[in-house]
């Protein structure tokens, strides 16, 4: 019986993987459902087990069974590792994704699974924390805070009870690495969390998954049940979000797990000291926790050897938007933005010139091709007025209206704001109104109240376009420096970068000094 491997990843299924799998099963094949390899241009992807290894074909439809099985199909790729999209990758985190049945404990163990946990159990908690520190791993959720230092704080905080919380509320548009990993290699995340539990002395963990990820929720539930005896005494449970973007912010997420309305907490106290139910809590992104098994299994140096500057190890970069090769690309830090967009991403899907890329999700800055020399590195992006975030890259061609994108950022903030802090709660709504006036080239005239004789200090002249732009910049300044969390604090990134790099879209020749280069 021929064995074939077909992804059960949500994106693959959306592209028809289920019907393809059914067709192969009907043809008498043994179909192994795996995670996705991560390149969606070749999905549904079918890999056929042969004496020469797994031979990939894609994209494949349900009518292609015979041609695939006899090796004649025109979309024959050959061994997947030889495909240019994969040959340059360094898969530390996604090594098994697309390779094994995600829920096969045997498959996981046979492919290097649990090596990290076993290694950790042979070490003292402090030694595990030291290893994570030595690896240079930084939080993959976006903030880039050194994971080992966070763990050290939790380890050092005495408490009867501590928690490991995995942030799998992957809300950024254009990002999907967390989902792919949970669907494609759930034991890997479980292993990472169990290592964290051992490292800091926590016995229980929560995985907080957004409700929009039903496959991931189901897969994690099943995987936790199957792995329970393997990770003892550590225990895990899944909590499902209720559709609020802000619950991806770590303190809102903790509130949400506690059963409260998801609202950002002021820090300090840090969650590492007073987190879930006031107990010391490690809260890490899926990718941070999933980087840990490699570090323990292969040693911190193997991880630290890869990377750029202070950004060590690999990053699963998610390329999306108007791009030819959309998908997940795990590689060490340091490739330039241009290489990622043009060479790996293959340029736009529409074939038109790239005009802008947004890096780091909806709160990331927009970059024009003139900045494609930037290396993928936390510090380099911060210096250029942007952020890496969760490493999502969204590509736009030259038909994009950047003023609309700026408005979208404010609107997004208004829709998703928890409403706790003033700059975000009111500022995002005022920002949307303001950009609307700017785009409509209709600066605000004095309103009824301002022209009342009772009002003595209000401006009574109509505002100029430049004044409105200045107000927008002031508002962004208030939001950036005044907001309680990154939602309000980072919304100015897309707005200001659009304004700086694409002033013409705002009906203005005004060019901000920072964008003059």
């Amino acid at each position: 019986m021929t064995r074939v491997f077909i992804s059960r990843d949500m994106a693959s299924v959306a592209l028809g993987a289920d019907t393809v799998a059914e067709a192969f099963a009907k043809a008498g094949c043994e179909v192994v459902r795996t995670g996705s390899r991560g390149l969606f241009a070749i999905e549904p992807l079918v890999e056929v087990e042969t004496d020469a290894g797994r031979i990939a074909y894609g994209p494949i439809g349900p009518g292609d069974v015979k041609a695939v099985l006899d090796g004649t199909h025109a979309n024959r790729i050959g061994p997947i590792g030889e495909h240019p999209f994969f040959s340059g990758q360094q898969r530390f985190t996604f090594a098994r994704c697309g390779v094994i049945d995600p829920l096969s404990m045997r498959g996981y163990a046979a492919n290097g699974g649990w090596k990290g946990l076993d290694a950790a159990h042979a070490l003292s908690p402090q030694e595990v924390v030291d290893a994570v520190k030595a690896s240079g791993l930084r939080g993959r959720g976006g903030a880039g805070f050194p994971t080992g230092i966070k763990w050290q704080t939790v380890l050092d905080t005495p408490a009867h009870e501590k928690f490991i919380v995995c942030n799998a509320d992957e809300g950024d548009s254009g990002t999907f690495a967390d989902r792919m990993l949970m669907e494609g290699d759930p034991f890997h995340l479980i292993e990472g969390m169990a290592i964290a539990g051992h490292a800091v002395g926590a016995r229980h963990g929560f995985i907080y998954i957004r409700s929009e990820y039903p496959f991931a929720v189901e897969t994690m539930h099943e995987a936790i049940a199957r792995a329970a005896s393997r990770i003892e005494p550590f225990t895990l449970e899944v909590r499902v979000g209720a559709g609020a973007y802000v619950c991806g912010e770590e303190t809102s997420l903790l509130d949400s797990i506690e059963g409260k309305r998801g609202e950002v907490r002021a820090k300090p106290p840090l969650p590492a000291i007073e987190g879930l139910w006031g107990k010391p809590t490690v809260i890490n992104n899926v990718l941070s926790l999933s980087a840990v098994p490699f570090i323990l299994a292969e040693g911190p140096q193997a991880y630290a050897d890869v990377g750029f500057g202070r950004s060590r190890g690999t990053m699963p970069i998610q390329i999306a938007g108007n791009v030819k090769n959309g998908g997940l690309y795990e590689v060490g830090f340091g490739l330039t933005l241009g290489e990622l967009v043009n060479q790996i991403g293959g340029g736009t899907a529409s074939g038109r010139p790239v005009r802008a890329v947004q890096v780091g999700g909806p709160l990331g800055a927009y970059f024009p091709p003139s900045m494609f020399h930037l290396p993928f590195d936390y510090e380099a992006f911060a210096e250029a007025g942007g952020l890496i975030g969760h490493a999502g890259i969204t590509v736009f061609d030259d038909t994009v209206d950047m003023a609309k994108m700026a408005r979208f950022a404010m609107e997004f903030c208004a829709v998703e704001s928890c409403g706790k802090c003033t700059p975000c709660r009111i500022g995002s709504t005022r920002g949307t109104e303001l950009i609307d006036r700017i785009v409509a080239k209709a600066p605000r005239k004095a309103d009824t109240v301002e022209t009342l004789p009772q009002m003595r200090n209000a401006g009574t002249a109509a505002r100029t376009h430049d004044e409105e732009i200045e107000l927008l910049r002031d508002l962004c300044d208030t939001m950036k420096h005044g907001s309680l969390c990154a939602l309000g604090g980072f919304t100015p990134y897309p707005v200001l970068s659009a304004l700086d790099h694409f002033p013409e879209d705002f009906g203005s020749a005004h060019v901000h000094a920072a964008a003059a280069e």
Partner: protein
Amino acid sequence: MTFTREKDFGTPAKHGETVSLTIDGQPVSVPAGTSIMRAAAMVDTAIPKLCATDSLESFGSCRLCLVEIEGRKGYPASCTTPVAPEMVVRTETDKLRKLRRGVMELYISDHPLDCLTCSANGDCELQDQAGAVGLRDVRFGYEGANHLEGCKDESNPYFTFDPAKCIVCSRCVRACDDVQGTLALTVDGRGFASKIAASQGEDFLSSECVSCGACVQACPTSALIENTVIDKGTPDKSVVTTCAYCGVGCTFRAEMRGEDLVRMVPWKEGKANHGHSCVKGRFAWGYAQHRDRILNPMVRTSVDEPWREVSWEEAITHVASEFRRIQSSYGTRAIGGITSSRCTNEETFLVQKLIRQGFGNNNVDTCARVCHSPTGYGLKTTFGTSAGTQDFDSVEQADVILVIGANPTDGHPVFASRMKRRLREGARLIVVDPRRIDLVRSPHIEAAYHLPLQPGTNVALLTAMAHVIVTEGLVDEAYVRERCDGEAYAEWAAFVSEPARSPEAIEELTGVPAADLRAAARLYATGGNGAIYYGLGVTEHSQGSSTVMAIANLAMATGNVGKPGTGVNPLRGQNNVQGSCDMGSFPHELPGYRHVSDNATRALFEADWGVTLDAQPGLRINNMLDAATDGTFKGIFIQGEDILQSDPNTKHVAAGLAAMECVVVQDLFLNETANYAHVFLPGSTFLEKDGTFTNAERRIQMVRKVMEPKNGYADWEVVQLVANAMGLRWTYTHPSQIMDEIARLTPTFAGVSFDVLEERGSVQWPMNAAAPEGTPTMHLDQFVRGKGLFVVTDYVPTDERTGPRFPLLLTTGRILSQYNVGAQTRRTENGAWHAEDRLEIHPHDAENRGIRDGDWVALRSRAGETTLRALITDRVAPGVVYTTFHHPDTQANVITTDFSDWATNCPEYKVTAVQVMPSNGPSDWQTRYREQSDRSRRIATVEPAE
């Protein structure tokens, strides 16, 4: 005194090692954990703020309080950032000014602009901060999306919620959650749509809101504001005084405009309430100005006549001559008096002095007779003094809280909020009560054990707890050996260990599953600091004193007396019931709980007062009434107590009063007792006099006059007029002189004076040379009596039993919005919550009788019958019914019997065998009573010729 707001440090005080830092170049040293905002406020640097207030933990939402810290990125919020050693903070820079103005510009872009006509004008933090940041222009204009269309919620009689004025700072929500613990408020929606909502978007009155006022107090704008401020404007001065409702003893700032009280705001420095309040003290003070208040003295020769208004002089002369006449006809002991637990210590002291010095006998009693007299007896016997062992703050260190026969969320709401806060922090709770009181299960609180015993079985249950503790080896033997009388302990331990005292043996009797009782006993004995709080459900039984002693036994056996977090704590009812007892209001005790038969004590008073005192104890209230019926007791002076409504077996009380020749009632209103009075002397309210109250934690606090007595005299002045008319030569010109006399004659008060109280705010007795700072926790190193005394408490069932005619047990209690006989609260808007007494009955018992919710039912005992409406609830167990006694129309005490505590005669209010049947309307008694009451309250309209 001029009006100033209490200083707001922004965040609560912290206690830690001292940290030194620099704020705007000024060196500051504060405890670790203090916020930068508070540290700045301590050196008078007011960092702009809106969401922060020092009654609440920091929240960090308004973003006005941003500061710059050397070596740190960005602009941290000073409210949420704790100080650190060597920190260098700048609170005013160009950048900070710009950011703050940017935030304020956003606020004002969604806020009404009618500051000058706003009810919070001049008392609005938003207005202040807009000024502080120098906002001059709102560049967004005023026509963007906004919340200005929101409708006002005027459902609550005391305050108004105007959502248009709301800045969504969440202070109200946090106050409701953290301070009050009701969790009635929330922020509904998110982002720009966020708005404050009560319960599930209901109006405030229909919501779970208990109208404590914490949200109103917390609100920085006029979004939540007192209706009295809307009506009268902001106050121009304030005076700190003490609430005249319950025994918690909350202190308030009476905020005045001229002689007009604008609002009562709980005082943050108050040691009993720490800035919190309940609906009664905060809002229900309108009775002081109620049209029903009687302001002129009145006299009549017969209770069938209408009242005749007379001058003070005539009234006083009449009282003195009547009392002297009666004494000359019937003997010295034919008259007596009742002191008021609602009046000040000084007034109470004077009334008992009038009786002892002027009447020449010891016929003095007080309402503690009907509430906590068993506490006095029980705690004096076991510990050596008649008072709770702790201060209220002690609850913050309790690990296991045992509540017996008390319903703090209704009866002592402000203390209940503190208890609930401790419970939310993780302390465990045991509730012993026939009813499922709110504490058993409320938001974020659940009792570990609720032992729903049958009314009247307290002693059996507590002795069974002792059985578990002794037989399972859970006694704190070192403590017992060192602190307690060994012989008494051995006898007691042997007694409780008998199999007949086991939880299993009494399970059928109490109805409490033995396993639960055992578990609860173990928890109390082993769960850390164990604190017992009890109320009238303990004392108002035929075995009330035994129950108090059983409680004391438990506490001693487990080492839970003499340190913070533990203790035996009676939750006392009236504002000054502790004080009235301290002041010698009992017929057998001179001030300071010293027996009248003690020659040395008597000699002390005799030397000071220049008379010979009667060495024989006088009559208790019920004895006075009995003696009246027998014809030997003929005259009584009743100050501030409505015995006809509050005492048991109304018919018996009425018969006693009717048999007297001169009944003098002093009160604010023509109360029920006044129906039988011959002289009515108008009383003054707590707002109209100086003095002191002593709360349930023995804390003596100042009551300060904020307005002239509407009736002309403070109550202490009236007593002095009577005394002097009877030939005594009193010359008090201020209550402070009375306190000096109390201190002179009472060792436990030796260090107390008005000057000391002014200086310290409050003190807890004993305060004397041995305890110069007062005494927060009693019995620290040893018990007042020396060795703690275990007392064998044999369970003796009450004679009040159910049977075929009266198959249900009635127990009575109070409700949050009304206070005792309701004389005050019924004359406020509190009727919005509890306009009538209702009978709680289990669905099973209701169904058997064909009773539906809201039906009129007849409630009948062997003593009498009344009617009221039914409330069907499983809060009471089958076989038990419950009602309150706030409304004279119901006259619940027509039902209660004259059984009483074996030691103190405290009435057995809590157990009456009754029958409940459907009914069409008022009972014959109620109809007759109403007619008689109306008749006896007539006041002659024509000024009689003199």
